[in-house]
């Protein structure tokens, strides 16, 4: 394979259109193993679209994306293979309402890795304990709070043993008092050295765990810098304008 061993994701010259809208423009991005990235930017800047391209939930029209040395094919060929290495956590949690917490976590490992029910259950319990929600394993999603649901969603993704975790505004749909429990869970993951890309406006989180903060606007990566630099001495006008908007509130 062409990539170095410590590169997890490599995007080069990625372009995407929604109809006539050019939503990603020449994105070049390399993410190393164990790296924590925070992506921020105004709404409609393309940050969610960018991470959705990595696991082929969106199709790209130009450029290449490689995950763990596997290149994503045109029209999403190879997508299932890549998705198994990439965990994703959604803004709306997207837990399966008809399955218990435990079943939510066991479904994909059982269907894809074809492991036994007992093994899947052990694995699920392990990650549910890690996100401190194992005692709710028998409950259905609708019986949990938003924060609890999101933690289950994180555990569900971890059960597939992903090489990288993508977070798509994981705290935006939560009531304010539940944001912390989810961020704490994510910080815990970061401490374990898991590779992660996180679309979020939680700048405290960015300061605490990000190796690099990336600012996007109108489909372009405008600025990439370590958090101290990014928040202390942003180079670009648009970054400054954005930061002043979200930090002054």
């Amino acid at each position: 394979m062409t990539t170095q061993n410590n590169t997890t994701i490599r995007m080069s010259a990625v372009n995407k259109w929604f109809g006539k809208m050019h939503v990603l423009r020449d994105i070049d991005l390399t993410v190393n193993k164990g790296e924590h990235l925070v992506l921020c930017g105004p709404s409609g800047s393309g940050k969610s679209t960018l991470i959705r391209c990595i696991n082929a939930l969106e199709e790209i029209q130009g450029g290449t994306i490689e995950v763990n040395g596997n290149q994503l094919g045109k029209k999403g060929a190879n997508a299932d293979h890549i998705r198994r290495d990439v965990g994703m956590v959604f803004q709306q949690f997207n837990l399966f309402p008809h399955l218990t917490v435990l079943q939510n976590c066991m479904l994909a490992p059982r269907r894809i890795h074809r492991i036994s029910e007992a093994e899947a259950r052990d694995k699920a319990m392990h990650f549910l304990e890690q996100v401190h929600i194992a005692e709710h394993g028998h409950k259905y999603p609708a019986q949990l709070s938003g924060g609890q649901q999101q933690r289950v969603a994180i555990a569900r993704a971890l059960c597939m043993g992903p090489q990288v975790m993508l977070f798509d505004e994981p705290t935006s749909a939560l009531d304010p008092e539940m944001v912390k429990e989810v961020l704490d869970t994510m910080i815990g993951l970061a401490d374990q050295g898991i590779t992660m890309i996180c679309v979020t406006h939680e700048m405290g989180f960015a300061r605490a765990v990000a190796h690099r903060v990336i600012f996007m606007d109108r489909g372009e990566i405008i600025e990439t810098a370590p958090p101290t630099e990014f928040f202390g001495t942003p180079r670009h006008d648009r970054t400054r304008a954005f930061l002043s908007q979200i930090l002054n509130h």
Partner: protein
Amino acid sequence: MYDFDFAPVFQAWRLLAAGAWATVYISAISMALGLVFGIVLTAMRMAPVAALRSIAIGYIELIRNTPFLVQVFFIYFGMPELGLRLNAMEAAILTMTLNCSAYIAEIVRSGVESIRKGQIEAGRALGMSTPDVYRFIVFRPAIRAVYPSLCSQFILMMLNTSLVASISAQELTYAAQMIDNQTFRSFEVYFVLGAIYLILSQLFSLGLGLIGRTYFSYPTK
């Protein structure tokens, strides 16, 4: 003044009971087969291949826009011309299945369309294949969403079985017609018959509700 006399009708209760059993039996078989075929039609209806979609739409609209009775005659009297000779019972079950599947397909489709896109994306993001996503993630919530319509459709179909008496399939209405021919108590016979159908439809409603509560009972907000 007409003197009502229900006695001869009740004397023939064995015939009615056997007929009622036959009605339940052919309804249940057709429902099960119709559900399976209806789901296949739904899959075709939503397939990425245009030809499959057109076939499914054409079939569904043809069935939904012609009377069940004409479909029964077409299958029972017309099919032998094409070499498919069926007895009355077989023709009845086949027609009911074909008929029911078109309505079920429309109902199931609206159920599938009611599922949020995020559910499918979550399955995809976990690396699940499309068939697995529909089978394990979409199916149950989709059916749950349209279960009341599905039940009404099943009951409507059970009531429709009365029409297969016209090709001498031996179900409840056929039994009643036999009693009518022997007793000449038409009004009494059909009054009792109506009451039996009313009870059957309540029983179906109860039974289907019970199935719904066991298979689809998970809490929602």
